């Protein structure tokens, strides 16, 4: 197996699992969204590393270039990044509203308040 081999996929898996760990282990809602972002970037890296071809140039046509990298994943990820920031904004808006309603953004605090509310 030549040097790069499958390393790009392993890096993606490590990043993805880091993001996953942040999402499931942290109680703070902002940290959860940051974790989702890390997860998202790992998927982007996965697509982009799949699109790389050895010796391929950036996909801008020119007569002097023989091989190009695969432009299709670039397109998908390009739009996904912008959509990602828009959805992050939506998540952040939800966090702000949760804070308005509960006065906290820690998950366990919110659950405690909910429990108090349901059994007065």
């Amino acid at each position, binding site marked *: 197996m030549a040097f790069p081999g499958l390393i790009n996929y392993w890096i993606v898996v490590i990043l993805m699992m880091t993001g996953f760990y942040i999402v499931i282990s942290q109680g703070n809602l902002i940290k959860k969204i940051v974790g989702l972002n890390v997860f998202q970037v790992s998927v982007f890296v996965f697509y982009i590393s799949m699109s790389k071809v050895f010796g391929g140039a950036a996909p*801008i046509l020119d007569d002097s270039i023989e091989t190009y990298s695969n432009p299709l994943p670039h397109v998908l990820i*390009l*739009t996904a990044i*912008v959509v990602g920031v*828009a959805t992050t*904004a939506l998540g*952040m*808006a939800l966090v*702000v509203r949760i804070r308005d309603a509960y006065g906290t953004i820690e998950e366990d605090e919110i659950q405690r308040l909910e429990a108090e509310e349901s059994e007065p």
Partner: protein
Amino acid sequence: MNSHSILRVVAKFMIPFIFLYALYVQFHGDFGPGGGFQAGVIFAVGFILYALIYGIDEARRVLPAGLTRTLLSLGVLLYAGVGGLGIYLGGNFLNYSVLSSHPVSGQHLGIFLIEFGVGTTVAATMITIFFIFAGQDR
């Protein structure tokens, strides 16, 4: 931030260049890296810088909330409208070849228009979101 004259002067100097760069990215997207998505973000960053330095109210005076919301929907409508125009002229939805007498120039025109729509929507979205978040504590 009214007392930081260095910031104010530098920002005033930089903002036109940011807008110019955004327009370059928008219209040069056919030939190099760039396009509507990036240009929209850079354009929004220009306004966000202005709002950060001069205050939200001042920025709102330059760019009223109604205007950003109108632009927000106009971008989508422009995109969909170009698609609809394709049907009207006898092609498929979002087929730009019929927009002009020659297919390639039609494609050019179509890409130009929809990139413009994308740029408008993205810029308006980013500005709207920033102003809403920054304008909360009043």
